[in-house]
């Protein structure tokens, strides 16, 4: 902006003089960098470190580097039942490099792009170090491979990590591709982020109609997952758990957990609050009635009600033992009981009961399930870790079984070496991981969990669709249920989840997208934080007596939902804690916040919390100064430096509640309240996909949502390596352009480098009547020039198999006719039997002439000596099918995993826009091409410019997409000015400035031009809103949809026409259409449509018995006397027969109508 001002002013000397004045338009020459305007530079710095898919990478890196070691540690020993001396211990685990290899080695099979092309899995070996006994000796073995791990692209185990663009080009990889997905069997698979209710936290809910309050907690450990409830029933409180047959009165549970004194129970649950005490006191009567006084009695009571599912062979437990087991491990499983110290568990149960009592007294104390702070996001790493632990346990138990089998044999010739039998099972881990990722079926034995649809194929329709998929969050919530709560926009979503980007229809609000500046935490160690809390003045919970626990002013300190102590000065505690975090002593992702309703300080270190960076504020001034920003711009500082210096910090949703965040720096001037944080940039409330929209803050909200869905369907550039890719189906735009009106987000996500659309000159006017219902008028000359032109490439895979009898498929050359020319089907083939590059393939022509041996099924052992040379083959060519011809783009021949030849043929079509192709602007305004008009007939302006697109003005009033109008004006100003303008959300180029440019260039401030009719040459009666708007061509094209059929294939069972275009199906006259025809009275048409044209069938019916016969013979009556031949739908005949098979005899009674 300032540059432009400079240019304009510089034209006259006077204006130039003005610049030399110490003060120019209120700005001094020595002005500081404006922190308010320049702080947005933190955003590119953030994205540089974090990237858009950092959450996936972080999570995977954490899994590979930390979690794997924990899993190994938890399952480190393999022992034998036969030989007590034998053991095998896992010492260490590594993925992708050996212990001896130099640091930074990344041992992957092949570069990722080669894996994509060759249908392989991009993986790296998993090495373990083991220590085991062989005879008497203890042997250490390093770098034992136990399987292969699929590697997430761009993770720290991937060869693409940290390499330059040039090196990327060598690997045929696009530097803009975000990574974060896997390549399994050649397909790119994403593990979508899953949203769940947080684990190990108490959630209190109330059903006021039923008068039920319940506190529930889902305990999740490595070993088990279970849910414990504390519920009210007739105002009495019970504990409910799946493995306990009936609900246990809360007092008995607490007694079983060692709190035998009624006074203590009352103090723990109610404190000294008389209201709570009144509500709770009934529960004591219940326990007294049941005569449970001591811990042992209570344990017996619980033990008696435990549902025992003991496997055969396991020791039978006494009632008391069952009770102890239930209290210690089953109920609230995530709290472990050591040394018989039940107190922590008792306190947890008491806390749950307290929350229930509090809610009974004040129903407003319930928790909100939909609140983002109560949600956790499950990422690829966590899911992989669950899967790996399961597979590893299976691996170990298989291994153990194997060892036992060998050791059991009394006489062994050689000394037993365990390593010989460990390799047998290494395929299990590899295959298990591969299968889960490629099918998306996560089945975990230990949780008895079966989850389908965890992974998805990465959509490569355009760069944005791939990016949009990486930031997508899917909810575990059922789509079919009609509830509004989980779908509604949550206020706590602000800045964390995109407010616009969600699909329409059944998944609306359940599928969300991450906002631009978010981070998802990974697990952090609890122990050091706990220690730190004690040092900061938190009193250990084991030393606190029940009387003081809930006394006034005492705040409980909760670490990941578990009470670890109390503190009387919570604000000091919290501020001390934050100080340590801001100095980098604790991980920046640990959050702490006070909940004054519960008198609690909550500290969270668990993974899956969404958080975002904010600028710290002190005394209503941001801590970031111009100096800091200069360091950033000079490249001296990176984003992490801001964290280390305590200028920026991450806040999760819960901690946001503890802070006052200013949107703009100016909000803090003269403000009465003390702000704690400052927003880095307000447009980060939107995600990557919604960030493409120019001026979204001027649009009606649903329009932005529509654009988010459509932006993912736009055809454009996919990646720098797009012409090296061989995907099932790819769309390329031939001449993509970056938008005239950009946003900051567009630049940040490099959409301007891989755009999906073109700047079309749009005239908003009515023309020809072929523009009703949002249809567009296209300029033929623009289409000739390449507007909206795209290419569609489709992959065809042919495998040449080998058969057990040593025969194999071959490719044979083209066949020629008597003139020596190739026969019509083989015209595209070369002498090698493969389609020639660039050859045109028409419907019915062959692009690979594959032949299979005629004796493939014969056995190996048979007569193989008789005819070794006379191997005969039968042609099974791959035919091209399609209304329009294609051209052979690429042919790839390779060898896949199982040593079979793999041929991929890529066929290309170039398409120009035609009637019915779908286009859309970036404001959720889609339309199909209604007519293509010669340029001569289109209106033109003074400069002779005629529009590329004419859009009907009726598209505006009801849609209220004001942003589109501003985009036009900004775009027009940019075109005239030679600059790219910005339409960033809550900012961007100002309309006034744009209008000023237009006026300066001799145009109307309003963007309206005088146009002349192309037909009459007269000027049009009204000024026409005229200028460039960025238009996207959507993937829905008429060529892929058009379909008609007279006769064709029929389904075997019903003899009705098949369904669907791909099967050359018929067009259905459905129920509603049938109703219309009935209403109209066109009975003969009905008869023709429903039977004659569909599945008419001649049937012989016996008029005597009413059943069907055949060949004029009734099998029931054994006569041909009363047979009448008539026509019925085959489906009706089928129905009768099916009824007969169910012992129902439908009999037809025939009569004459006329």
């Amino acid at each position: 902006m300032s540059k432009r001002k400079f240019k304009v002013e510089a034209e006259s000397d006077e204006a130039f003089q003005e610049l030399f004045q110490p003060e120019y338009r209120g700005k001094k020459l020595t002005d500081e960098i404006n922190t308010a305007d320049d702080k947005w530079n933190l955003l590119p710095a953030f994205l540089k470190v974090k990237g858009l898919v950092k959450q996936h990478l972080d999570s995977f890196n954490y899994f590979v580097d930390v979690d794997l070691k924990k899993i190994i540690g938890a399952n480190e020993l393999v022992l034998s039942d036969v030989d007590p001396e034998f053991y095998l211990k896992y010492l260490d685990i590594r993925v992708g490099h050996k212990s001896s290899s130099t640091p930074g080695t990344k041992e992957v099979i092949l570069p990722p792009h080669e894996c994509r092309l060759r249908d392989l899995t991009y993986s790296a070996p998993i090495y373990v170090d083991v220590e085991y006994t062989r005879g008497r000796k203890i042997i250490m073995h390093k770098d034992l491979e136990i399987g292969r791990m699929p590697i997430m692209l761009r993770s720290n185990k991937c060869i693409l990590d940290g390499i330059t663009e040039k090196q990327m080009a060598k690997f045929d990889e696009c530097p803009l591709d975000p990574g974060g997905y896997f390549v399994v069997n050649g397909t790119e698979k994403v593990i979508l982020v899953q949203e769940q209710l947080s684990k190990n936290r108490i959630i209190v809910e109330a059903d006021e109609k039923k008068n039920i309050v319940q506190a529930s907690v889902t305990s999740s450990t490595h070993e088990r997952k279970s849910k414990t409830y504390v519920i009210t029933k007739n105002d009495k409180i019970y504990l409910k758990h799946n493995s306990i047959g009936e609900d246990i009165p809360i007092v008995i549970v607490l007694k079983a957990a060692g709190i035998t004194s009624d006074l203590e129970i009352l103090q723990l649950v109610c404190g000294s609050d008389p209201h709570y005490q009144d509500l709770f006191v009934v529960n004591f009567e219940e326990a007294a009635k049941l005569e449970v006084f001591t811990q042992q009695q209570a344990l017996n009571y619980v033990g008696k009600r435990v549902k025992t599912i003991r496997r055969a062979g396991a020791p039978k437990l006494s009632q008391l033992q069952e009770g102890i087991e239930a209290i210690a491990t089953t109920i609230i499983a995530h709290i472990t009981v050591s040394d018989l110290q039940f107190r922590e568990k008792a306190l947890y149960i008491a806390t749950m009961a307290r929350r229930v009592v509090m809610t009974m007294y004040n129903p407003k104390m319930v928790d909100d399930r939909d609140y983002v702070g109560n949600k956790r996001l499950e990422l690829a790493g966590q899911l992989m870790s669950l899967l790996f632990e399961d597979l590893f346990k299976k691996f170990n138990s298989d291994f153990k079984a194997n060892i036992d089998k060998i050791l059991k044999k009394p006489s062994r010739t050689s000394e037993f070496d365990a390593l010989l039998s460990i390799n047998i099972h290494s395929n299990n881990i590899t295959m298990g991981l591969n299968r889960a990722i490629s099918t998306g079926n996560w089945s975990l034995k230990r949780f008895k969990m079966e989850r389908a649809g965890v992974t998805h194929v990465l959509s490569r329709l355009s760069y944005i669709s791939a990016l949009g998929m990486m930031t997508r969050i899917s909810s575990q919530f059922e789509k079919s249920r009609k509830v509004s709560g989980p779908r509604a926009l949550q206020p706590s979503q602000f800045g964390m989840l995109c407010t616009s980007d969600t699909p329409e229809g059944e998944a609306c609000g359940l599928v969300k997208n991450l906002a631009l500046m978010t981070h998802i935490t990974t697990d952090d160690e609890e122990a050091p934080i706990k220690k730190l809390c004690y040092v900061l003045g938190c009193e250990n919970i084991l030393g606190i007596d029940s009387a003081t626990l809930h006394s006034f002013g005492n705040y409980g300190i909760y670490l990941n939902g578990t009470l670890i102590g109390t503190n009387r000065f919570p604000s000091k505690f919290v501020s001390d804690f934050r100080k340590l975090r801001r100095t980098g002593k604790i991980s920046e992702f640990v959050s702490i916040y006070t909940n004054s309703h519960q008198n609690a300080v909550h500290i969270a270190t668990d993974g899956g919390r969404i958080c975002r960076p904010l600028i710290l504020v002190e005394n209503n001034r941001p801590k970031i100064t111009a100096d800091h920003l200069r360091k950033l711009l000079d490249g001296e500082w990176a984003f992490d430096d801001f964290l280390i210096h305590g200028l920026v910090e991450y806040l999760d949703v819960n901690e946001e509640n503890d802070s006052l965040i200013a949107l703009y720096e100016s909000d803090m001037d003269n403000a009465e309240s003390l702000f704690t944080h400052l927003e880095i940039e307000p447009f980060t409330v939107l995600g990557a996909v919604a960030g493409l929209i120019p001026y979204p803050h001027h649009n009606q909200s649903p329009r932005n949502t529509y654009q988010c869905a459509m932006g993912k369907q736009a055809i454009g550039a996919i990646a720098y390596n797009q012409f090296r890719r061989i995907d099932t189906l790819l769309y390329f735009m031939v001449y993509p352009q970056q938008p005239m009106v950009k946003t900051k987000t567009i630049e940040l996500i490099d959409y301007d480098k891989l755009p999906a659309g073109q700047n079309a000159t749009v005239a908003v006017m009515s023309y020809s009547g072929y523009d009703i219902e949002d249809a567009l008028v296209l300029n033929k000359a623009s289409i000739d020039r390449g507007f909206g032109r795209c290419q569609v490439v489709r992959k065809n895979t042919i495998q040449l198999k080998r058969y057990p009898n040593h025969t194999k498929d071959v490719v044979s050359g083209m066949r020629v006719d008597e003139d020596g020319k190739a026969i019509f089907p083989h015209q595209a083939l070369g002498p090698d039997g493969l389609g020639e590059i660039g050859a045109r393939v028409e419907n019915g022509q062959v692009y690979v002439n594959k032949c299979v041996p005629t004796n493939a099924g014969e056995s190996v052992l048979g007569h193989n000596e008789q005819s070794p040379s006379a191997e005969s083959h039968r042609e099974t060519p791959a035919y091209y099918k399609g209304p329009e011809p294609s051209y052979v783009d690429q042919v790839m021949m390779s060898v896949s995993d199982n040593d079979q030849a793999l041929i991929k043929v890529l066929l290309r079509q170039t398409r120009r826009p035609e009637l019915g192709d779908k286009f859309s602007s970036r404001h959720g305004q889609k339309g199909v091409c209604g007519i293509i008009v010669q340029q001569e007939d289109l209106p033109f302006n003074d400069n002779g410019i005629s529009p590329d697109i004419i859009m009907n003005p009726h598209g505006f009033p009801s849609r209220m997409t004001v942003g589109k109008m501003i985009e036009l004006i900004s775009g027009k100003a940019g075109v005239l000015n030679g600059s790219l303008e910005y339409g960033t959300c809550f900012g961007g180029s100002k309309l006034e400035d744009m209008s000023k440019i237009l006026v300066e260039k001799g145009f109307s401030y309003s963007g309206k031009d005088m146009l002349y009719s192309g037909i009459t040459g007269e000027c049009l009666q009204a000024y026409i809103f005229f200028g460039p708007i960025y238009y996207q061509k959507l993937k829905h094209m008429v060529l892929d949809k058009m379909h008609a059929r007279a006769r064709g294939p029929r389904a075997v069972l019903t003899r009705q026409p098949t369904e669907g275009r791909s099967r050359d199906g018929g067009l259905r006259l459905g129920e509603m259409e049938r109703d219309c025809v009935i209403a109209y009275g066109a009975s003969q048409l009905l008869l023709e449509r429903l039977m004659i044209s569909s599945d008419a069938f001649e049937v012989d019916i016996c008029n005597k018995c009413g059943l069907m016969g055949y060949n004029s013979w009734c099998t029931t009556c054994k006569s041909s006397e009363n047979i009448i031949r008539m026509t019925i739908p085959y489906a009706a005949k089928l129905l009768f027969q099916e009824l007969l098979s169910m012992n129902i005899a439908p009999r037809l009674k025939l009569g004459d109508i006329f």
Partner: protein
Amino acid sequence: MSNQLFIEEDEDTNIVADPEINISPDHEEDPIIESIPIVLNDISSDQNNKFQVIQYPGRQKNRPLQGNFYKASVKTVTNFLEVKMPLDTTKFFNGHKIDDWGEDIGEQTLNGVLNKTEGGLYAAKIIKQDGHKKIVLVPIDSTAQLRASFKYIDDVDANNQAQRKAEATDTTKSTNIQILQTASKSGAQITHGDGFGNALGESLKHIKKFEEEEWAGLKWESADGTMATSIRQEAFLNAPDSELITESDLMSYVDDLTRS
């Protein structure tokens, strides 16, 4: 092993957190009035003496323990403490219940798990010696909260149950057919079949260990007893005169803490 000193809760009022961690001494609001040297007397080197805080949350402050008739014993491996005290049968004692619960309710049993402190808990005393003040800190080994156990009720229950069981087995004799069947398979093989089963839960194993361990008797001393006085003397008055000086500065201390 035998000689442990118990400090009653009321006496040990000043459990101080580590004094080094005044993260941000706000100098203006909180001026230093007086500096007192701190002396750390680590008596844990002496294996026989340990400071342990014992709380009895069920008893009110204005009803301190009296008399010398207590018996204490401990299971050191499984960290369990038991104190037996005579029952005051004069107050709130329902004599009729003796009929139900047997006549040997002579004493009340209190027990609790000893929780090891991970450092940071100290017993402290300000000592004035020839005009000099000093604070003596003695690290506390562990804390325990005692709760009443009613073994006599459990015993009655257990007796009843055993009786019932005996009656039940009399009537139906052959119940162990099932066991024979399962025993024919090798048990361990099955439980570990899928790799996810384990025979006895961690807590049950611990109980087994607990039951196998012998009680070690302790000597009970009242607060003003000779031994208690001498130990107190040793712990506080005879503390070495070397002042505790921190060598690590605040930040390195915090680093030490937060390093995982």
